[in-house]
C-alpha cells in the first residue's frame, strides 16, 4: 500500500512537473511569439526600460530610455511638446509631391511619416529595427495560420476631416496600394497580400500567399488615409492638400521650393517638440552650407565631406550615420575573365575599402562586410566578414585563373551625384584594380542619372558592362532577405549571369521563416557565405549620410534609415 501510495505520489509528482513544464514552455512560447505581437507599453519617467535610446510617446510627449547615474536603464523625459519652436531645415531636394504611396526612401520617407500614420512605426534609434504601435495598437499572427496577421486598430481617433480611423480606413488604403491601376510605387512591397478582411470596426485581418514575417514592418511604410475624402477627391487632388494623422500637418507646399509642417492636433500618438518645421530647398551644396553658417537655416542635409572640418571648427553639430545602403559593384559574370570566381575574388582583395573611407569620405562611413546590409539590420550574419585588402593574394588568384599579365581591359560604369562621392570612388577603385598585374586598364564610364537608370533596368542602348556601381538600399524593409533575393537565379534586374542553386535554395528557405527565428538567420548566413565565396559583387562601403545643425538646436538625431527625427527636434 505504502509502495502503491509512493508510486501514486511519484506519478502525481511527475504529472504536476510535466504540467508545470508545459506551462513554462507555453509561457515561453507565448513570450517568443510576442516578438511578433506588440501591445502598447506604458512607460513612466523613472520606470525601468531595456533598450537605451528607444523612445516612447506618453501623453503626447516623448520619453527616452537612458542610463542614470547609478547605471540603471530608466525612462527619462526627452522633450516637451511645443517647446521647440520653429526649426528650419535646408535640404537638397524635396519630393515633388506629398504622395503617400510612392516608393519610400529619404527624404520622402520622413516627410511621409511626419504627415501620415502607418499601421506600425519602426524605431531605429538603437540601430536595430524595433516595431512600435502607430495606427495599430497591437498585432499578431493567427495561431495555426502563419499567413494571416490580425491588427487591432487604435480606438477613438479620427482624421482631421472627421472620418474615423478604423479597419475600413486600413482596408481602403491597402486596397488602393494593391490595385495595379493606381501605379503605387509601394505596391511591390505588398504583392503577396491576397486578402484583407475587416473583422470588426477596429480589427483587420491580412493574409499573405506565404508566411510573411516582415509584414508588420513593411506596413509601417504604408500610410492610412481617410477613405471617403480620398475617394471623393481622387489621388492627384488629395496629394495637393493632404491630411493625415501623423505628428505634423502640411500647411504650405511649393514644389521644389519649400514645405511647411505644423504640429497636427489629430496626431495619433505624439505632439512634437517643434511647433513648426520648415524645409527649404537649397540644391547647391555650397549654398546650403552657407545658409547654415549665415543662420538662414538650423539644420542642413547631405553635408559634403569636404565641408565637415570647416563646420566642426565653427562648432556645428555634425551627425553622421551609415546609410542603410551599400555601395557595391555588380561584376559581369556572364562571360570572359569575370566568369571565373577567382578573378572576382581577386577584385575584392584588390580594393582597399578603408582607403575609400579615409581618402574620399573624410573618414566617415563603414567598410561593408561581404554582405548586402549594414550590421544591426535583420538578417546580418556575424560570421561573414569583408575581403581584406591583399594585393599579393589578388595577384595569386589571377595567376591561378590563368589570366595573362596586362590582358584585361575593363569598363566601370558609375553614376554621378547619385551616390555620395560616386565618381571619385569609381576613379579610385579603377586605379586600385589597375594595380593588378593582369589588368591593363579600367575605363570609368560616368552615366548621367537617366542613362544610369537605363543601364540599371537593362533597357536602352547602353549594355551593362564589366563593373556596374550602385547603391543597394535596405530601406524600408531593413532586412537582408529583400536584397539577397536580387542575386537569385532569374531576378529581373540582375542580368550579370550569376546563378547558384544552393544559394537559391537557402534564400527560398529563409523567405518562409519567422524573421526572429534562428533557422532563418542560419539560412541567410549560409546564403551570405555562398555569395561571398562566389563573389558576383565587388563589395565597397556603407556610405555616410551627414547632417549638420547649429548650436541652439536640440535633439538632432538621424536614424539608421537616414530619417531625421522630426518629432523630437527643437530649438532651445
Amino acid at each position, binding site marked *: 500500500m505504502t509502495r502503491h501510495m509512493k508510486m501514486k505520489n511519484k506519478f502525481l509528482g511527475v504529472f504536476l512537473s510535466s504540467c508545470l513544464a508545459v506551462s513554462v514552455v507555453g509561457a515561453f512560447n507565448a513570450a517568443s511569439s510576442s516578438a511578433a505581437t506588440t501591445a502598447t507599453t506604458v512607460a513612466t519617467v523613472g520606470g525601468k526600460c531595456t533598450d537605451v535610446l528607444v523612445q516612447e510617446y506618453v501623453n503626447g510627449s516623448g520619453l527616452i530610455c537612458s542610463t542614470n547615474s547609478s547605471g540603471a536603464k530608466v525612462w527619462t523625459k526627452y522633450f516637451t511638446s511645443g517647446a521647440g519652436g520653429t526649426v528650419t531645415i535646408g535640404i537638397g531636394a524635396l519630393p515633388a509631391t506629398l504622395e503617400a504611396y510612392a516608393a519610400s526612401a529619404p527624404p520622402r520617407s520622413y516627410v511621409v511619416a511626419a504627415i501620415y500614420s502607418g499601421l506600425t512605426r519602426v524605431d531605429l534609434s538603437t540601430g536595430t529595427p524595433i516595431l512600435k504601435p502607430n495606427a495599430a495598437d497591437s498585432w499578431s499572427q493567427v495561431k495555426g495560420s502563419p499567413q494571416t496577421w490580425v491588427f487591432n486598430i487604435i480606438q477613438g481617433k479620427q482624421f482631421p476631416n472627421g472620418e474615423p480611423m478604423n479597419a475600413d480606413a486600413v482596408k481602403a488604403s491597402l486596397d488602393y496600394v494593391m490595385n495595379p491601376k493606381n501605379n503605387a*510605387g509601394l505596391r511591390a512591397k505588398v504583392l503577396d497580400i491576397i486578402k484583407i478582411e475587416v473583422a470588426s470596426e477596429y480589427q483587420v485581418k491580412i493574409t499573405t500567399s506565404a508566411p510573411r514575417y516582415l509584414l508588420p514592418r513593411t506596413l509601417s511604410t504604408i500610410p492610412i488615409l481617410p477613405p471617403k475624402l480620398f475617394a471623393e477627391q481622387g489621388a492627384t487632388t488629395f496629394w495637393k492638400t493632404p491630411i493625415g494623422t501623423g505628428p505634423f500637418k502640411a500647411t504650405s507646399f511649393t*514644389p521644389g521650393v519649400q514645405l511647411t509642417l505644423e504640429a497636427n492636433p489629430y496626431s495619433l500618438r505624439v505632439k512634437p517638440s517643434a511647433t513648426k518645421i520648415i524645409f527649404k530647398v537649397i*540644391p547647391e551644396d555650397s549654398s546650403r552650407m552657407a545658409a547654415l553658417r*549665415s543662420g538662414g537655416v538650423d539644420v542642413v542635409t547631405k553635408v559634403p565631406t569636404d565641408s565637415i572640418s570647416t563646420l566642426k571648427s565653427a562648432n556645428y553639430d555634425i551627425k553622421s550615420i551609415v546609410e542603410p545602403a551599400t555601395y557595391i559593384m555588380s561584376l559581369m559574370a556572364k562571360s570572359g575573365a569575370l566568369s571565373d570566381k577567382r578573378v572576382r575574388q581577386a577584385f575584392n582583395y584588390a580594393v582597399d575599402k578603408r582607403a575609400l573611407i579615409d581618402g574620399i569620405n573624410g573618414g566617415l562611413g563603414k567598410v561593408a562586410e561581404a554582405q548586402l546590409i549594414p550590421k544591426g539590420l535583420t538578417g546580418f550574419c556575424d560570421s561573414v566578414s569583408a575581403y581584406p585588402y591583399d594585393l599579393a593574394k589578388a595577384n595569386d588568384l589571377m595567376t591561378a585563373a590563368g589570366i595573362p599579365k596586362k590582358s584585361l581591359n575593363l569598363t566601370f560604369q558609375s553614376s554621378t551625384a547619385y551616390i555620395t562621392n560616386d565618381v571619385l570612388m569609381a576613379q579610385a577603385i579603377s586605379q586600385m584594380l589597375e594595380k593588378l598585374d593582369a589588368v591593363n586598364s579600367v575605363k570609368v564610364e560616368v552615366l548621367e542619372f*537617366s542613362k544610369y537608370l537605363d543601364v540599371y533596368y537593362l533597357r536602352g542602348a547602353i549594355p551593362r558592362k564589366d563593373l556596374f556601381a550602385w547603391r543597394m538600399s535596405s530601406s524600408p524593409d531593413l532586412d537582408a532577405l529583400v536584397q539577397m533575393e536580387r542575386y537569385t537565379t532569374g531576378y529581373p534586374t540582375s542580368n550579370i549571369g550569376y546563378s547558384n542553386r544552393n544559394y537559391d535554395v537557402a534564400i527560398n528557405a529563409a523567405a518562409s521563416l519567422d524573421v526572429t527565428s534562428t533557422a532563418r538567420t542560419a539560412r541567410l548566413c549560409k546564403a551570405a557565405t555562398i555569395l561571398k565565396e562566389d563573389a558576383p559583387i565587388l563589395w565597397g562601403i556603407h556610405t555616410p549620410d551627414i547632417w549638420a545643425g547649429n548650436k541652439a538646436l536640440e535633439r538632432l538625431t538621424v536614424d539608421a534609415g537616414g530619417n531625421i527625427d522630426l518629432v523630437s527636434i527643437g530649438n532651445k
Partner: protein
Amino acid sequence: MIRILGSRLLQLILVVIGIGTLLFFLVRVSGDPALAIAGSDATAENIASIRQSLGLDRSILEQYLTFLQNLCTLNFGESYTYLLPAMPLILAALPNTLYLSFVAFLLAIAIAVPAGIYAAVKRNSFSGKAVMSFSMLGQSIPPFVIGIFLILVFSVWLRWLPSFGNEAGLSIIMPSVALSAVLMARYTRLIRAYFLEELNRGYVRTGKSLGFTNARIWFKHILRNISVPMLSLIGIDLGKFVGGAVIVEAVFAWPGIGSLMINAVKARDYPLLEAGVFAIAVMVVLLNLIVDLLYLYIDPRIRAKVN
C-alpha cells in the same frame, strides 16, 4: 511698323515650332521617363503601366502630332513629377526669373554706362585704368563663383543679406549682382571702346567749337550714337542672360524656372521641360522684338527707312 510686328510674330511662331520639334525629339532620345518615375524597386508591370498612362507606348509620330496639337493651345500636359499642369507651374515661377533678370539687367546698365564713359574720358588716369581692371575681373569670373563669394562675405561673415530664396526685399541684391557682373563688365569695356571712337568724330569737335558742355556732348550726342550698336549686342546677350539666370538661381536657391528646368532634365519630365523651353524661347523672341522697336525710336535713319 505693322509689317515689322507681323514679320516678328511669324518669326516667333517658326522659332517656337522649330525649338519645340527639336526639343521633342531630343528629350525622347534621352531615355524613358517611366524608369525615373517608377523608382528602383518597381516591377516591369509598374513601368509598363506608367508608360501607358503617360502615352509613351504610342508611336513617336503619334506623340509628335499630339504635341503639335497641344502646342497650339499651350497645353503641354501634366508634369510627370509634380502631377500638375506644366505650363501653370512654369508661369508661377516665371515672374521670379523675370524679376531677377530685369533687376540684374538694369543694374548692369546703370553701372556700365557711367563706368564706361568715365573709363573713356579718363583713359590715361589711374582711376580709368582701375575701372578697366575691375571690368576685366568681372568678365573673367563666372557668375556662380561671384555668387558664392558674395554669400561668403555678406551672408556668412557679415550676416547682412539672406543667402537664399526670395522672401525679403533684400534677397534680390546678391543674385542680381552675381548675374549682372559679367554683363556689367562687358558693357563697361564696350561703351568705353565705342565712346573713344566717337570722341574723335567731327560732330564732337563741332560741338566743342560751338561751346557745348562736355555733359551735353557725352550724354545727348555720343551716348545716342553708341546706343545703336549697343542695342544689337543687348539683343544677342539677352538669350545668354536668361541662361545665366538659371545657374544663378541654383546658387541662391532662387525660386525661378531654373530649378524647375534642372529637375525636369533630371527626371525626364517632358511636359515641364517643353513648357519651360517654350517660355524661355518666347521670352527671348519678345525681348528681341522690343530691341527692334527701340532701334526705330533711337535711330531716325531706320525709322525713315521703315516709313
